[in-house]
C-alpha cells in the first residue's frame, strides 16, 4: 500500500495464516498493538493514525469486532490534509453506524467541509452523509445540501453527490427536508446535460415521486426527454457510452422513475415515449459480446416493465409477451431467469393470462432446471398462472417435483400445492387425493394447517366422507407412512370409518388393528388422536363386539397411568364413558360442521407476501386493479356455535379443558358454554402440544372426579389454561437460558427457551456429520404472537438451513421448523438463533445458542488395547497430538469423570491404562472435511490434587486435535459456561428477565422438564 509498509506487512501476515486460529491470533496481536498506540497520543502522528485506522478497517472486513478506535477514525475527518481527511471519511462511513455518538461530534466539521470552498472536501463530506447520515444530519445539513444541488456555481462533480446526499436526508427524516416548490427545481435538474448529475438526480426523483407523484408531474416529460436523448445517442460523451450503448444505467433509472407515475396524460409525451419504447422492443438484437448483450437487455427488460405499467395497447402487450415467451426458452440462463420473473410480474395485468398459458409446458420444463434460481421463478410463475382450467396439470407437476426438490423449497412447494388444490379443485375428491399425496410424499414439510384444512372440508361435505375414509384406509396399507398420515387417517376413520363397514378389511375391528399397528411408531401428540379414534370405533360397533371392546379397553387401561396427562386423561375418560352406553353415543357422535371461513393456508401465504418490501412493483400493483390471487375477506370470528361434542382431533392439539367441559355436558353440570372458550375449530384455536403445560391444572380438576362423579367445578374456564394474565404485557423469562443450553449439549431434546409467552423446544437427531433439528415454537397465549422471526447466525464451520418460520404464531398453536445442520470442519463455535417476536406492543428478542456443539458430531467408540496403542503411537506429537496441563479443574472422582466423558460421546476404555489414576478414551468425529476420524485422549490425574491434570489428545487432523482438546478442557474446568460465550447468557434475553418468582404453573410442575421428557 502506498507508503504504509506496516499495513502491507500486516496484510501479508494475514494472507500467510494457515488457518482461522492463526489468523485470529495475528489479528488479536494487531488489535493490542493498535490499542496501545492509540493510548499514547503524544507519538501518534496523523500518518500513524491513518495507518492504524486502515488496519482497523481491514480487521473489521475480516469479520472481527473492532470496538475501539472509532474516535480516532472520526478525528481524522478534521485533519487539514487531503490524504488523512479522506481516510477519516471513508473508514468512518464503513465502521460506524448512523447512531454512533462520535458521529454527532463530527457534524460541525462535516458541515464546514460541505459549505467550504474546497470541492474535494465537499465531495468527501457529502458522500459520508449520503452513506450514513442520520436524523441529526438531516436537521442540521439539509438546507446546505439543497443549496449545493441547485447552485449554478457548483461543478457537476459536487452536485451529483449532493443529489444522493439529499436523497439520504430525505429518506431518514422527510420532515426535516423542505421540499416545497422542489418540483420545479427537480425539473430544472433533469435538464442538466451531465450524465453523472442526471444519474443521481433520477434516483432522487424516484424517492420524491414515490412519496407524491402529483407534485412532480412536471418531471415526467423531462424523463422522457432524457430517454429520447439517450436512445438517439445525441450528445452522449464517449465516456458514458458502454459497449456502444448510451449509459444503460441512466436509461434504466429514467424508465424506472416513469413507473412511479400512474399514467401519462399528455398525448405528445406519451407518443414520444412509446416511440422510444417501440425502438427498444424492436431494435434489441442478440449480439456476441456478452457485456453489450447484457447492457442492451437490461434496457430491454426495463422497457418491458414500463410498457406493462403503462398498460399499452393490446398489440404492444402481445409483443411483450411474445418476447418473454422467447426469453423463457433460450439457453442463456440469465435471460431465461429474467423472462420467467417478468412473466410473473406480467400476470398482474389482465387479459394476457391466456397468452401466457400457451407457454405452460415450457415453464414446467424450467421447474426441472438444474438451477435453483430458475426453478424458484418457475414455481412462482406456475403458482401465479394457475386457475381452474390448468390446476390439475400444474398441481400434478408440483407434486412430482416435490419428491426431488431440495429441502429448502419443500415447505413452500407443499403449501403452494395445497393452496392451488383448494382454490381450483374441479372436484373435492381430487382435492383430498392431492392433500393425501402431499402428506405421503413430503409429510415433514406439510404443516398442520394443511391436514386440518382437509379434515375441515371432509367434515363439511357429506358426499366426500366415504371417499375420504376409503382413501385413508388405502394409505394405511402402505408399509411406512408419515406420522401426519397416521393422524389424518385416524381422524377420518374415527369419524367416518363406519361408512365403509361393508367393504372388505374395513370392519371396526380391522380398522382398529391396522391403526393400532401404527401406535408404537408414533410420537406422543399422535397417541391422543388414536385413543379418540378407538373410542369412536368402539361406539360405532353395533351390535357391540366384545372382542374389540376387550382390546380397546386394554389399551385405555394401559394408558391410564401414562406420564402424559393428556393421554392419561383421555384413557381414563374414554374408559369410563365407554361403560356408559347411551351417554357415550351422544358424546362421541360425529363432529358438527365447521363454520365457513377463509382458508388459513391462504392467509398464511398472504402473510408471507405482506412482508415484502414496498417496491415499485408493489406500488404499481396497488395502483391498478389486480386480479392477484388472494381474496381477503374479513374472517368470521365469534359467530361459530360452540359444538357440544368431543373434538377428537384435539389430541394433536390437546385442549384438555374443553375436553373436560364437553365431556361433562351430558351430565348437565354446565348448562351453557362460555362463548369465550376456544371453539374446536381445528385450524386456529386448539392448542399445540405445548399446551401440555396447562395439564397440571386440568389434572387437578380431574382429581375431583370430573367424570364418574357429577359436577365439574365451574371455575374451569378457558382462561384457567393460561397461566399468564393477558393484560400484563411484561415478558418473564422462565428458567436459565445458559443452563438450558448446557443441558441440551448433552441430550437431544428439551426446552431451549421459555418465557411467559413462548416456549421453544428442540429435538435433534444426529448422524455422522449431519444433524436434523426441529424447533418447536409454541405460543402459550390466547392472542397471537406477531412479527415472529427466527434467524440463524451460523459459524463458519456449520452449514445450517432453517425452514422459514411464519410471521405469526396463532394463539396456543405450535410451529415446527426443521433445521438441517451439516458440519464442515471441526470447531467449537456455536450457531446462534436470533429469535424475536412481538406480543402486544412489546418486542422481545433473544439470542440463543443452538446446541449443535462439537460433541454432537462424535460417535462413541470403545477400543481394545490392541486397537488403541498402535494408533496412539502413530500420532507422534504436535500438531496431531497435543498435550496440556490443565489447572482449575472441577474436582471429580475418577468414575464421575468417566461418566462426564461418556456423556459427550468420548468413550472411556477401561483397563487400558495400567495406572489407575489415568483415563484413556476414544471417539469418532464426523465432519465434511475430515470425514469420519478417530480421536484418542488420555487424562492423567493427580490423586493428591484433583484440581489439576495432564491431558493428551490426538487425531489425524491438527485442527480437530486442537478443537477437541479445548472442548474437553472446557468441560473439565470449573465454570464451563461463559468462558467463550458469544452470546451474553441472559442479558440479551427478554425485557425483564429473571429475579421474579416463577409463575404458579411453573411452580406446580416444571412444564419445561415435562415437555423435554415427552419430546
Amino acid at each position, binding site marked *: 500500500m502506498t507508503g504504509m509498509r506496516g499495513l502491507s506487512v500486516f496484510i501479508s501476515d494475514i494472507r500467510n495464516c494457515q488457518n482461522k486460529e492463526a489468523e485470529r491470533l495475528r489479528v488479536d496481536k494487531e488489535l493490542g498493538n493498535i490499542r496501545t498506540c492509540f493510548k499514547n497520543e503524544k507519538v501518534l502522528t496523523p500518518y500513524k493514525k491513518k495507518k492504524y485506522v*486502515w488496519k482497523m478497517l481491514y480487521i473489521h472486513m475480516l469479520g472481527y469486532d473492532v470496538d475501539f478506535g472509532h474516535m480516532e477514525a472520526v478525528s481524522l475527518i478534521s485533519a487539514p490534509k487531503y490524504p488523512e481527511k479522506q481516510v477519516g471519511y471513508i473508514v468512518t462511513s464503513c465502521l460506524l*453506524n448512523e447512531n454512533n455518538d462520535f458521529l454527532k461530534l463530527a457534524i460541525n466539521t462535516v458541515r464546514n467541509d460541505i459549505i467550504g470552498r474546497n470541492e474535494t472536501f465537499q465531495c468527501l463530506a457529502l458522500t459520508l452523509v449520503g452513506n450514513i447520515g442520520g436524523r441529526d444530519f438531516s436537521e442540521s445539513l439539509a438546507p446546505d445540501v439543497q443549496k449545493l444541488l441547485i447552485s449554478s456555481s457548483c461543478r457537476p462533480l459536487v452536485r451529483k453527490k449532493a443529489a444522493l446526499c439529499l436523497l439520504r436526508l430525505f429518506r431518514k427524516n422527510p420532515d426535516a427536508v423542505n421540499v416545497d416548490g422542489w418540483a420545479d427545481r427537480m425539473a430544472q435538474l433533469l435538464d442538466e446535460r451531465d450524465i453523472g448529475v442526471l444519474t443521481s438526480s433520477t434516483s432522487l426523483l424516484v424517492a420524491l415521486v414515490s412519496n407524491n407523484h402529483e407534485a412532480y408531474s412536471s418531471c415526467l416529460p423531462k424523463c422522457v426527454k432524457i430517454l429520447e436523448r439517450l436512445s438517439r445517442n445525441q450528445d452522449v460523451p464517449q465516456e458514458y457510452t*458502454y459497449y456502444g450503448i448510451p449509459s444503460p444505467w441512466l436509461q434504466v433509472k429514467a424508465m424506472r422513475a416513469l413507473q412511479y407515475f400512474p399514467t401519462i396524460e399528455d398525448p405528445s409525451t406519451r407518443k414520444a415515449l412509446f416511440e422510444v419504447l417501440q425502438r427498444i422492443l424492436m431494435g434489441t438484437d442478440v449480439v456476441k459480446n456478452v457485456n453489450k448483450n*447484457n447492457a442492451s437487455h437490461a434496457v430491454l427488460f426495463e422497457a418491458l416493465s414500463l410498457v406493462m405499467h403503462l398498460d399499452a395497447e393490446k398489440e404492444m402487450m402481445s409483443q411483450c409477451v411474445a418476447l418473454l415467451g422467447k426469453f423463457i426458452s433460450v439457453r442463456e440462463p*440469465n435471460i431465461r431467469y429474467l423472462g420467467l420473473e417478468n412473466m410473473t410480474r406480467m400476470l398482474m395485468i389482465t387479459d394476457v393470462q391466456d397468452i401466457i398459458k400457451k407457454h405452460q409446458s415450457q415453464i414446467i420444463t424450467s421447474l426441472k432446471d438444474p438451477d435453483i434460481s430458475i426453478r424458484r421463478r418457475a414455481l412462482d410463475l406456475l403458482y401465479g398462472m394457475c386457475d381452474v382450467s390448468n390446476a390439475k396439470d400444474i398441481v400434478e407437476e408440483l407434486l412430482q417435483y416435490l419428491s426431488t426438490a431440495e429441502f429448502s423449497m419443500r415447505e413452500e412447494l407443499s403449501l403452494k400445492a395445497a393452496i392451488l388444490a383448494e382454490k381450483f379443485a374441479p372436484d373435492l375428491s381430487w382435492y383430498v387425493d392431492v392433500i393425501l399425496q402431499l402428506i405421503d410424499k413430503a409429510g415433514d414439510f406439510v404443516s398442520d394447517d394443511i391436514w386440518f384444512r382437509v379434515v375441515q372440508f371432509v367434515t363439511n361435505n357429506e358426499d366426500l366422507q366415504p371417499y375420504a375414509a376409503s382413501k385413508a384406509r388405502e394409505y394405511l396399507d402402505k408399509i411406512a407412512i408419515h406420522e401426519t398420515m397416521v393422524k389424518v387417517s385416524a381422524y377420518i376413520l374415527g369419524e367416518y370409518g363406519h361408512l365403509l363397514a361393508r367393504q372388505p378389511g374395513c370392519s371396526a375391528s380391522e380398522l382398529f388393528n391396522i391403526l393400532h399397528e401404527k401406535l408404537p411408531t408414533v410420537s406422543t401428540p399422535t397417541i391422543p388422536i388414536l385413543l379418540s379414534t378407538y373410542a369412536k370405533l368402539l361406539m360405532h360397533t353395533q351390535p357391540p363386539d366384545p372382542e374389540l371392546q376387550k382390546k380397546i379397553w386394554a389399551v385405555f387401561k394401559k394408558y391410564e397411568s401414562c406420564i402424559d396427562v393428556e393421554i392419561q386423561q383421555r384413557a381414563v375418560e374414554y374408559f369410563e364413558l365407554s361403560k356408559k352406553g347411551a351417554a357415550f353415543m351422544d358424546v362421541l357422535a360425529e363432529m358438527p360442521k365447521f363454520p365457513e371461513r377463509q382458508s388459513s393456508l391462504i392467509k398464511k401465504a398472504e402473510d408471507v407476501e405482506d412482508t415484502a418490501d414496498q417496491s415499485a412493483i408493489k406500488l404499481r400493483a396497488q395502483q391498478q386493479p389486480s386480479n392477484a390471487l388472494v381474496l381477503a375477506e374479513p374472517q368470521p370470528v365469534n359467530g361459530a356455535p360452540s359444538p357440544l361434542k368431543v373434538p377428537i382431533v384435539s389430541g394433536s392439539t390437546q385442549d384438555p379443558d374443553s375436553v373436560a367441559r364437553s365431556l361433562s355436558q351430558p351430565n348437565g353440570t354446565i348448562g351453557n358454554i362460555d362463548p369465550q372458550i376456544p371453539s374446536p375449530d381445528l385450524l386456529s384455536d386448539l392448542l399445540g402440544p405445548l399446551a401440555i403445560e396447562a395439564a397440571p391444572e386440568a389434572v387437578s380438576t380431574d382429581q375431583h372426579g370430573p367424570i364418574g362423579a357429577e359436577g365439574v367445578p365451574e371455575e374451569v374456564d378457558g382462561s384457567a389454561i393460561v397461566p399468564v394474565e393477558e393484560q400484563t404485557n411484561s415478558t418473564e423469562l422462565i428458567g436459565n437460558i445458559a443452563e438450558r443450553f448446557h443441558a441440551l449439549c448433552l441430550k437431544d431434546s428439551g426446552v431451549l427457551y421459555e418465557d411467559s409467552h413462548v416456549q421453544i423446544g428442540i429435538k435433534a437427531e444426529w448422524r455422522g456429520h449431519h444433524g436434523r433439528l426441529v424447533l418447536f415454537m409454541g405460543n402459550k397465549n390466547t392472542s397471537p404472537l406477531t412479527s415472529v422471526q427466527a434467524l440463524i*447466525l*451460523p459459524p463458519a464451520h456449520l452449514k445450517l438451513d432453517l425452514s422459514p418460520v411464519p410471521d405469526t404464531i396463532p394463539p396456543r398453536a405450535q410451529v415446527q421448523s426443521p433445521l438441517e445442520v451439516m458440519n464442515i470442519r471441526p470447531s467449537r463455535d456455536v450457531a446462534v438463533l436470533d429469535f424475536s417476536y412481538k406480543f402486544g406492543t412489546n418486542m422481545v428478542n433473544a439470542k440463543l445458542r443452538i446446541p449443535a456443539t462439537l460433541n454432537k458430531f462424535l460417535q462413541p467408540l470403545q477400543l481394545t488395547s490392541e486397537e488403541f496403542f498402535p494408533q496412539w503411537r502413530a500420532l507422534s506429537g504436535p500438531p496431531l497430538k497435543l498435550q496440556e496441563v490443565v489447572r482449575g479443574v472441577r474436582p471429580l472422582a475418577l468414575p464421575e469423570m468417566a461418566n462426564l466423558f461418556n456423556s459427550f460421546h468420548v468413550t472411556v476404555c477401561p483397563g487400558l491404562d495400567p495406572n489407575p489414576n489415568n483415563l484413556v478414551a476414544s471417539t469418532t468425529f464426523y465432519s465434511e472435511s475430515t470425514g469420519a476420524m478417530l480421536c484418542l485422549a488420555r487424562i492423567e490425574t493427580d490423586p493428591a490434587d484433583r484440581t489439576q491434570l495432564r491431558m493428551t489428545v490426538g487425531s489425524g487432523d491438527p485442527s480437530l486435535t486442537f478443537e477437541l482438546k479445548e472442548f474437553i478442557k472446557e468441560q473439565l474446568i470449573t465454570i464451563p459456561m461463559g468462558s467463550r460465550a458469544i452470546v451474553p447468557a441472559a442479558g440479551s434475553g427478554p425485557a425483564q428477565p429473571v429475579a421474579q418468582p416463577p409463575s404458579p404453573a411453573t411452580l406446580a410442575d416444571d412444564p419445561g422438564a415435562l415437555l423435554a421428557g415427552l419430546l
Partner: protein
Amino acid sequence: MGIRFILMVNKQGQTRLAQYYEWLTLEERRALEGEIVRKCLARNDQQCSFVEHRNYKIVYRRYASLFFMVGVDDDENELAILEFIHLLVETMDKHFGNVCELDIMFHLEKAHFMLEEMVMNGCIVETSKANILSSIQLMDKAH
C-alpha cells in the same frame, strides 16, 4: 434502495472487500457473507448469475479467482447491476493494469476510493471511468 452491499470474495471464501450500504451488526454480516458465499461458490457456469437469499437478490460475477457479489433489492434491474460489476472491474483494470486479487488486497484503500466514487447510499453516482479515477489521481499526486 437499490444496492445493499458489495462483496469481493475469493474462491476460498475469504472476503477481500466488503462495503455495506445498510447497517448490519458484525454477526449479521458474518452470517450473511457465509451463507451467500456458500451459495454462490456452489454454482457453476451454466447457472444464472442471480441468487435469491432472504430479502436480497445477489447478482454475482466471477473473474478468475475472485467473486464480485452485489446484494440488491428484489426489484432491482439485475442485468444493469451485472454490467455495473463489469464496469467496476474495468475501472480497476484501468487503474491497476491487469487487476488481480492481490491488487485489491494490498490496495484496499484504492478499491474503496473507486467504489466511493461509483456508488453512494446504494445508488449509482458515476459511470465514467475518467471521472471515477480522477480523485484517486488527485491523491496519488498528493504523495
